[in-house]
């Protein structure tokens, strides 16, 4: 367990953090030219991190180390962070003022490192710190992203509420430590949470309180009801490209942590000892979808609309978490793989939509409302097309990747064959229909309505590039989703084997559903 093993396993994360320090240091240079080129340096750091991630030993070779455990899940999350993160970086290229570039992009690197560490962590304390490493820089970035007073206001709100959520989560972790006597998530020779929850008399009230509190803290990160209230204000206050960042990075971290936590406590089921937790998640998922969509329906401001829709998308993904990872062969039955697929797709399509917004300005102000988008197809046909593609994808309409993502999420719930999950999937499908109403409003504003305001393009080359990549990716992932699905599927292998309750559930599932044979994944055949 020497330092060099750590370094080699975590080299991409180390690179991101060291890069952050470098960017901070160079970012205060006296030369304005150097200060203004920090975005380029940041991109170079991300590229190096990608190279290191590519060179990294594969998870099979890596043993469980104190505090971390490298799995296929962490590899998937790491790559998702780096690739989508690079796109986010390109979209944010011009967001901060020149003299603040160093701080802004350094914070961005820290946040990305945090997501990656979340996926590697195998200890409640490491997990907590990793999650805060994701969140704390985002508070700063919100404040730096605009000079507008609303940005400062939302940064303060975000900070205080984020701190509250962190406190709740830490409190929950302390309960978990209290009941189990260990902070280790799973694996290793000693006591761990997974071993504790695999035992029989483990689901006492204190364990439940710990899980509920921990879950609540994570629900804040993914903006799930009833911890969603901050999202609309913060998203509206931040600059549009940063909003895309906030919609993906903390969400990815939150869902990754949630998957790990659920794996440790053995995927709660509708009956048995873990039923109360399952039903709580069920209620939260249904509530999140509905609240997000209904509130989005009432908005006229596109940023607020997309903020609420972001809440709704978290609700859809919670369905996948509830389905769990092991309902049989093929991705149609793997809820967690569906979540991982969906979150990447969501990150890209959400970024596309926000990049269009940030590409436009109305009399010097960033575009925000539906009126600002009206008649966009006549001014900037390609931007309008990208907006339409992303809106259709968010809606879950073929031929875009959003459709495939939703099919996988909901069909997993149908395939599970449990009434409660089927009802939840039906709620999800109905909510998608509600969602169509406001996404279509965005698309029709771009194409059908006459221009209201004088639009001018503000974005640079990088933003046009991001737009093109995002809308193309939506088509490509529709035409050929299987590569990403396969990655997501292999990422869930580590959480499939964790915990004892899961095995009990598989046995139970065998009554109604085909038994599971993990090795005969059909997608490897082609």
């Amino acid at each position: 367990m020497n330092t060099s093993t750590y370094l080699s396993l975590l080299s991409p994360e180390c690179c991101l953090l060291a890069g952050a320090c470098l960017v901070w240091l160079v970012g205060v240079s006296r030369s304005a030219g150097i200060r203004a080129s920090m975005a380029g340096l940041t991109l170079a750091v991300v590229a190096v991190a990608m190279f290191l991630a590519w060179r990294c030993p594969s998870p099979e070779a890596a043993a469980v180390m104190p505090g971390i455990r490298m799995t296929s899940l962490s590899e998937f999350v790491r790559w998702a962070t780096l690739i989508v993160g690079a796109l986010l970086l390109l979209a944010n290229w011009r967001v901060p003022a020149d003299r603040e570039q160093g701080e802004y992009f350094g914070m961005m690197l820290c946040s990305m490192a945090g997501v990656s560490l979340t996926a590697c962590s195998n200890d409640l304390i490491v997990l907590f710190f990793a999650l805060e490493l994701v969140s704390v820089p985002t508070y700063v970035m919100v404040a730096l992203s605009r000079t507008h007073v609303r940005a400062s206001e939302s940064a303060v709100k975000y900070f205080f509420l984020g701190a509250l959520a962190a406190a709740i989560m830490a409190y929950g972790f302390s309960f978990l430590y209290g009941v189990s006597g260990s902070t280790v998530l799973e694996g290793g020779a000693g006591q761990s949470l997974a071993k504790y929850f695999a035992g029989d008399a483990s689901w006492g009230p204190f364990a439940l309180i710990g899980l509920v509190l921990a879950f609540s803290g994570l629900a804040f990160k993914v903006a799930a009801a009833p911890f969603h209230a901050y999202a609309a204000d913060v998203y509206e206050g931040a600059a549009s490209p940063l909003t895309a960042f906030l919609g993906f990075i903390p969400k990815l971290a939150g869902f990754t942590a949630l998957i790990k936590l659920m794996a440790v406590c053995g995927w709660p089921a509708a009956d048995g000892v873990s039923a109360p937790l399952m039903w709580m998640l069920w209620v939260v998922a249904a509530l999140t979808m509905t609240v997000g969509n209904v509130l989005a329906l009432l908005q006229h401001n596109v940023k607020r609309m997309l903020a609420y829709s972001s809440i709704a998308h978290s609700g859809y993904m919670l369905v996948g978490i509830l389905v769990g990872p092991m309902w049989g062969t093929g991705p149609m039955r793997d809820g967690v793989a569906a979540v991982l697929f969906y979150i990447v797709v969501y990150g890209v399509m959400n970024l596309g939509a926000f990049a269009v917004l940030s590409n436009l300005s109305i009399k010097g102000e960033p575009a925000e409302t539906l009126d600002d988008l009206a008649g966009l197809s006549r001014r900037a046909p390609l931007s309008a097309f990208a907006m339409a593609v992303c809106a259709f994808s968010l809606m879950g309409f073929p031929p875009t990747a959003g459709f495939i993502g939703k099919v996988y999420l909901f069909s997993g719930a149908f395939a599970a064959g449990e009434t409660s999950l089927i009802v939840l999937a039906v709620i999800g499908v109905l909510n998608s229909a509600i969602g169509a109403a406001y996404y279509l409003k965005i698309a029709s504003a771009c194409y059908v309505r006459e221009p209201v305001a004088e639009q001018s393009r503000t974005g640079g080359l990088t933003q046009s590039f991001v737009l093109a990549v995002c809308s193309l990716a939506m088509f490509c992932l529709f035409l050929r989703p299987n590569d990403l699905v396969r990655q997501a599927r292999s990422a869930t292998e580590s959480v499939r084997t964790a915990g004892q309750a899961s095995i009990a559930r598989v046995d139970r599932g065998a009554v109604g559903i085909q038994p599971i044979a993990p090795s005969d994944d059909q997608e490897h055949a082609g």
Partner: protein
Amino acid sequence: MDSSAVQTWALLILLAPLAGAIAAGVLGPGVLKGRSHWPVILGVGAAVLGAFKLFGLVRHGAHEGAHSVTVVLYQWFAAYEGKWFNVEVLVDPLTVIMLLVVTGVSLLVIIYSRDYMREDGQAVKGYERFFAYLGLFVFSMVALVLGGNFLLLYLGWEAVGLCSFLLIGFYYDKPAAAAAAKKAFLVNRIGDFGFGLGILLIYLTFGSLDFATVFDMAERGVAVSGDLSYGRVTAIALLLLCGAVGKSAQLPLHVWLPDAMEGPSPVSALIHAATMVTAGVYMIVRCGSIFAASPLAMTIVALIGGLTALFAASIALVQYDMKRILAYSTISQLGYMFLGLGVSAAGSAVFHLYTHAFFKALLFLAAGSVMHAMGGIIDIRKFGGLRRVLPWTYRTMFLGCLALAGFPLLSGFWSKDEIIHAAFTQDKFLGGLALLTAVMTAFYTFRMFFRAFFGTTRVPEGVHAHESGLWMLVPLFVLSIGAVFAGFVGVEVGHGGMLGLFRPHGAFHHFLEPVLTPFTHGGHEAHATLGHFQEFGLMYASAALSVFGIAVAYTLYVDSPMLAMIMRRVFPATHELLLNKYHVDEGYDRFIVRPLRSLGRFCAAIDEHLIDGLVWLVTAVPRLIGMLLRSIQQGSLQGYAASMMVGLAVLLAFVLWGVIS
């Protein structure tokens, strides 16, 4: 067959036109402008090359007894129970014939469009859009033909429909064109709805959408749950037929095709004559195992085909718009193909599809050339005697007209004769319909031809008539060679038959034979039941009828034009009825469109007053909650924190209550 070679060439055929379309669409407006035809010409040219290559591979494979190969390009989408929807191509003789026809005619039409879409040497508005759409169409059509399962077939089917819509409405600022595009799309929706249901029923019945699996099960007469019932297979066949009727403009869904002539002439030639409208025929041949299992469905196919052929030909007798005459003629010829399918002569139907593509594309392009020269006017009452003004158009069109009229030894004669023959073998009534149509075809074709090209030279006022340039003429030449000689691949040179030299069913049919086994198993052998005399007698009869039709047209429109006037006076009611296309459009308007519109208005009123009110009520609840919360929460940090804590308390209470109880 070497499946990796098949995969390579199939991918080329698919992707090259798409790449051309994208290049024209993306680079067209800014960079290429008047040169936007080049990427599409290159892309489709590559596809033609690929089609020939595949043809060679299939011929080679046929010698070795492997006539068909399915290549899975990749797994697309998972279904339940570990099943997958694949992106796969099926290459067999039928596929390569369709590919050759589609890519070949497309290439010629695209070359032709280079000049046609110009006015005084200047590219018309939307030039690059036009070529991008054409490229997209070629991609969609080859995808339809190559697709190895019903899902891909359906996707291609819808995509060609979309391209057709876009191209009919190409002149979108012209109200008639926009209306025609809408009509084509909506009428096709009716057919496609049935087609979609048919595919769903196939999935429910056979548990798969793969051609191989489905057709194998259909031939063995089994379904997922036990035996395949006659009712089920008939239902599937009729639903599929519904789609074919819409796409191939057969009765009663034929109304969209004549209106589709509002699109540019090359589009009429390519999409609404040679390729897309034949998709219905292709689909029925492809699904032969399903159709052959249901004699009832086959009878309906034959009846629809025979009646459509006669019905459309009779309308074409009196029309004045050159392109509409050709459109009705297309409907009528497609009717022949359906008739051929219905009487189990699928080989002859595909043969007719193939020859028809040549001469009908030729006729449309020649008509386009006339239209181009006449400054956009296509009414045969407004011009005449053009043979001196447009000498090359005149010559090529003459060959096209002869082929369409079924003049002996030209391509159209062979294929049409085979269908008439097969129809007679099966049923005297159907054969009679086909023969009557043949004589009408000869008449209306040459009525149009003589009125346009003979008599004194008349051109519309203010039009400087001129022969088209080489970009337009070369495709005409190539197609007229095809119109004359293409039929010979389908006849055998030997003893007996026409002129004692030619007998039907040649290399074309032998090549196609392995695909048509379901038809030949279930159907009748055309040659077995007719005597020698009848067989060749019919051939001479149809040749004589064709010449007779041409002669009548000559008498009425060149020799003594007064006779035509007198005829019109003598049968005013008939003339009126035909001129108004049997009032089908009016009937649809009165009995379908208007009631539906009233229903729509009724629904809109309900929506506006009832549903909107309900929605308002529903949204009022969150609004109310919002307003209640607003006092604590609006923008207030403490309010948000409080709501979080309340939420947390509720969740904890919920969970702990669950534990206790």
